[in-house]
């Protein structure tokens, strides 16, 4: 192959290449005051968050979908979540509300494994125990959205007293959802966490 052939081949290859499976993702973050939902162990808190997401995912089923090939979506039959405590070392899927003991048992069943291949279901990543206070995430196909729980911080409340707040981030695909809908979903999720009582 001579010089000219090589240059031509290289340029053709470069032009033919498609963008990687990156999803044009955006994030919204919300501060959630600590309360009954955050009491107890970290796993309890995570279980309550998962249950609240499962309760509210029915209205925004696109968040629980997954890409199936190029720009084709596959929806889950029932709302489901993928849970990754400890920053996503282990991932497990479930679609029925669980108590934290059940969740703990499920997650510790294969502690060294990377979990199953993630398809349909909203990802919930717990970074609160790693003291991470902010997160900006990119999504890769087949992911469509991801919820991240961040470490708590102290902030002055409306009355001026110090109050503990957790950060909650939603990464979402901009092609499927706009920021207004994402914020509305986060509001509904936050309200149900603060008002409802989850096991």
């Amino acid at each position, binding site marked *: 192959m001579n010089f000219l052939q090589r240059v031509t081949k290289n340029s053709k290859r470069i032009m033919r290449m498609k963008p990687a499976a990156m999803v044009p993702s955006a994030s919204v973050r919300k501060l959630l005051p600590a309360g009954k939902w955050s009491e107890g162990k970290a796993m309890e808190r995570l279980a309550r968050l998962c249950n609240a997401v499962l309760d509210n995912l029915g209205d925004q089923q696109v968040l629980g979908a997954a890409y199936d090939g190029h720009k084709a979506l596959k929806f889950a039959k029932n709302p489901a979540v993928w849970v990754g405590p400890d920053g996503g070392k282990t991932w497990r899927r479930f679609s029925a509300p669980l108590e934290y003991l059940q969740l703990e048992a499920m997650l510790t069943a294969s502690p060294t494994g990377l979990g199953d291949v993630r398809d349909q279901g909203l990802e919930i990543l717990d970074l609160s125990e790693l003291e991470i206070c902010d*997160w900006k995430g990119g999504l890769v196909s087949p992911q469509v959205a991801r919820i991240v729980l961040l470490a708590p911080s102290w902030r002055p409340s409306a009355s001026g007293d110090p109050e503990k707040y957790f950060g909650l981030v939603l990464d979402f695909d901009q092609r499927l959802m706009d920021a207004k809908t994402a914020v509305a979903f986060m509001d509904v999720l936050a309200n149900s966490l603060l008002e409802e009582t989850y096991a």
Partner: protein
Amino acid sequence: MTPLKKIPPSIGADRLAGWTDKRMLYIHGFQHYMWYPNCCVQKNIELTEADILRKEMNREDPDPGSRVTFNHIINKAVANALRHHILFNSKRTWRDTYLVYPHIDIANVVDVEGMATQIVIPDADKLTLRQVAQLSHRLVSTRRVTLRHRMSRLDNIFQTLPLFNKLAWAFPFVNRVLRDYSHKGAIEHLESRPGSFLVTNPGTLGVQDCKAMLFFGFRMGCLRVMAIEQKAQIVDGKLGFKKVLPTGLDYDQRICDAPAAARLLNEIQRNLEDPRRYCAGPVDEPEIGSDEGGA
């Protein structure tokens, strides 16, 4: 032969037109396939101890050429932390593998002559804090001189040869091919030491939050340092405020997950919050062949 036009000393409209042409060179160089998914974890790091150390060291040696700043302490802390997290001191290659660099070379983005450029501090983990500061000052002043010279030469060429502007898009590809074909170029490329990890400090420009975009073939990680903020904290049951440094670590999502990045960020935090212990002391060189080994 047409004499070269004299470059106006100030940045005028004609000079800005030349700048846009030069920008096109970089824009054509970046392709979509070079992008890769990156995530970012962020922490707030307390700076009280680093501030005390900085002031002490500057009192000992007030020479401006060896003045220690926060940037130097951050560089040293990052280099120390990378010794234990070598995965982040790597780059992705064309063969879908990761190349871990044998040296920890910290690249810094600096603002020289109104243009962002990089300086590289080689083997930053083996230098003392004072040496890092001295080297950094020297590199910045050298870069200022060489960059000014190079940009004025480019300006001359762009102004005298309009055809040069039209062909500017081809330079990255031609350079790449020539480098592959030229033995000398290949040797130079192997011997050159690009920074293996990037530290950028947009906080000096007052930036409070941002997101870095990493590109193929460069680095696996980038540490962003933002403007110092006042954060609330509880002291003896009362709400108080403390100065913190918001710091974010951008990393390639395909190579590692959040806990690995969080561990590196935690180690950087440990180094920065106790700099007297981890950054200021003499550099310990592990003996080759010793039982303890290196980091």
